[in-house]
């Protein structure tokens, strides 16, 4: 009953347009303090104290420090002119293929994903350069925007990934292992989008093909070498156990500053305060949701919700593969109606204890959940990558929404492979950490 009212309040407030953190916090705080929810012996002052402790504990974490830092590193790299260098280098590598520039955009997005932890940042960084360039080469604008949005979603799958940082924080699963687990799925996403682009470009005659030239590759590599160094430092530092995820994020900020200011000379000192504020505010939006959700999920947990769901799933008597499919389908639907980060934060405490019933370990489930919610970033009405790409391309949502359908279908196929062929996710962490 209480959980039902909580979620009804949440959905009503989101539907009315209240900012998501408030839509989560208002019903939770109201319900905790409402008479009759807790036994008469529990006094209001004590409940108020609990709310403040939960708000504080929700974000008092060294791991979560990586969120604003990866945001800042991504913003600095975006402003520092590395998108064009990455696209030029990728184009020199794969521009000879049918749909060469489209493939280059996917490859460049995968490189950028290795620096930034945010899909929206990846989409914005690539979109501004890639969409006009693709349109000039004869690709339809809607296809270009859809490709950039789909490739941007890889940003949360290939490490570093802000949703994986949040999942690790909420479940105590090693964030470094989650990062390693996301690597091959992210690559498969990229390769699948490239294959789709090649097929569609060959079929519809999109774009131009460039002759392959080793000299071009070396020239583009010379220009992009500093930008390409960033993923090496970030991922090498984390996966090699040299620095923690949060420290790697701080190093990424300093490396990004070095490249943007001293090497590319595209960023000036006076632009830094603006970038700091922008990235801190975007990070605060996520962190504020996490703080409010701590109160919400505490109340949900108090109502034994996970036990009820476990009971309901057990009554269905499904095999683990069936339970996993059911959970993945539910996540896909929820990812379409609730903003990705909020969905992750609200659902992890409820779903993470059910991994035993799904036949997967917590790390595998974490990566699957992030992949699943990344697909939610491509679908209306709350798909952030879709919105950003539409904004950059100045196209209506409906047009890009139709063009993105083949990419969503491909992404769903990859999700199914990742769900039922576990080595895709578990092999690399096993190799590095066990």
């Amino acid at each position, binding site marked *: 009953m209480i959980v039902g009212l909580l979620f009804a309040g949440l959905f009503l*407030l*989101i*539907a*009315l*347009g*209240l*900012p998501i*953190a*408030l839509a989560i*916090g*208002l019903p939770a*705080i*109201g319900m905790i*303090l409402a008479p009759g929810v807790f036994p008469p012996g529990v006094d209001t*002052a004590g409940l*108020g*104290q609990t*709310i*403040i*402790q939960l*708000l*504080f504990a929700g*974000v*008092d*974490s*060294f791991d*979560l*420090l990586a969120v*604003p*830092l990866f945001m*800042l590193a991504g913003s600095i790299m975006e402003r520092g002119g590395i998108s064009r260098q990455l696209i030029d280098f990728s184009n020199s590598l794969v521009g000879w293929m049918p749909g060469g520039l489209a493939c280059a955009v996917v490859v460049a997005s995968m490189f950028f994903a290795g620096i930034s932890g945010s899909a929206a940042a990846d989409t914005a960084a690539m979109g501004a350069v890639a969409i006009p360039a693709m349109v000039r080469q004869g690709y339809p604008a809607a296809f270009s925007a859809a490709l950039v949005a789909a490739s941007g979603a890889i940003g949360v799958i290939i490490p570093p990934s802000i949703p994986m940082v949040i999942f690790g924080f909420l479940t105590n699963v090693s964030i470094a292992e989650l990062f390693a687990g996301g690597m091959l799925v992210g690559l498969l996403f990229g390769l699948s989008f490239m294959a789709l682009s090649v097929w569609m470009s060959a079929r519809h005659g999109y774009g131009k093909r460039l002759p392959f030239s080793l000299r071009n590759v070396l020239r583009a590599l010379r220009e992009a070498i500093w930008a390409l160094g960033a993923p090496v430092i970030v991922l090498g530092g984390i996966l090699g156990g040299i*620095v923690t995820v*949060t*420290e790697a*994020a*701080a*190093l990424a*900020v*300093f490396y990004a500053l070095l490249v943007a200011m001293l090497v590319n000379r595209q960023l000036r000192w006076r632009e830094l*305060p603006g970038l*700091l*504020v922008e*990235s*801190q*505010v*975007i*990070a*605060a*939006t996520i*962190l*504020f949701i*996490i*703080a409010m959700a701590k109160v919400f999920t505490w109340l949900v947990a108090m109502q034994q919700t996970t036990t009820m769901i476990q009971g309901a799933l057990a009554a269905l008597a499904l095999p683990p593969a069936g339970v996993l499919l059911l959970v993945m389908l539910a996540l896909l639907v929820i990812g379409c109606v609730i903003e990705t980060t909020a969905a992750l934060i609200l659902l992890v405490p409820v779903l993470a204890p059910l991994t035993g019933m799904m036949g997967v370990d917590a790390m595998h489930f974490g990566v699957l959940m992030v992949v699943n919610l990344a697909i939610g970033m491509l679908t209306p009405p709350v798909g952030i990558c879709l919105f950003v790409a539409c904004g950059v391309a100045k196209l209506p949502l409906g047009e890009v929404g139709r063009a993105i359908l083949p990419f969503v279908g491909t992404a769903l196929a990859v999700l199914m492979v990742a769900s039922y062929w576990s080595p895709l996710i578990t092999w690399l962490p096993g190799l590095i950490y066990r």
Partner: protein
Amino acid sequence: MSALQRASQRLNALMEKLLIVIGAAICLILFAQVAFRYAGASLGWSEEVARHLLVAITFLGGTVAYKRASFIGLRGFGHRFGAGFQRAVVLALQWLTLACFALIAWFGAVYAVKAAEHSSASLQIPMSIPYAVIPLAALVFIVHVLADMGATRRPQDPAG
């Protein structure tokens, strides 16, 4: 523009400046943490300070995010209703938000005072200091919500 709206804007400008200082401080502290560790002299305080600064980013940055979203009109499906009904719903939501932050400010202040009995693990500062950011941010939220309520009631005011 009303005095409340001016106060809201000034507070927001102050919060933005604080975010610059806090963001830069976190970067420098964590960079120093790595550098000192590899120099063989780990910093004992860096992690705790960085965590408390993150709490400050969350709540102070949350006020800036709220201000930028400028919650004075309905989005979502509420947009489809008539103007009078929309304004009534927005006002009701603003009252709810105001009550929520008033409660957070009150309970937060009470708890921050109580937390003076406890000291932080490495710096040994009273825990009131990191906890104080919650009621302070709630007060800033209250000013922003009140300013929004003024703008909702006087939609014809071009400065509002």
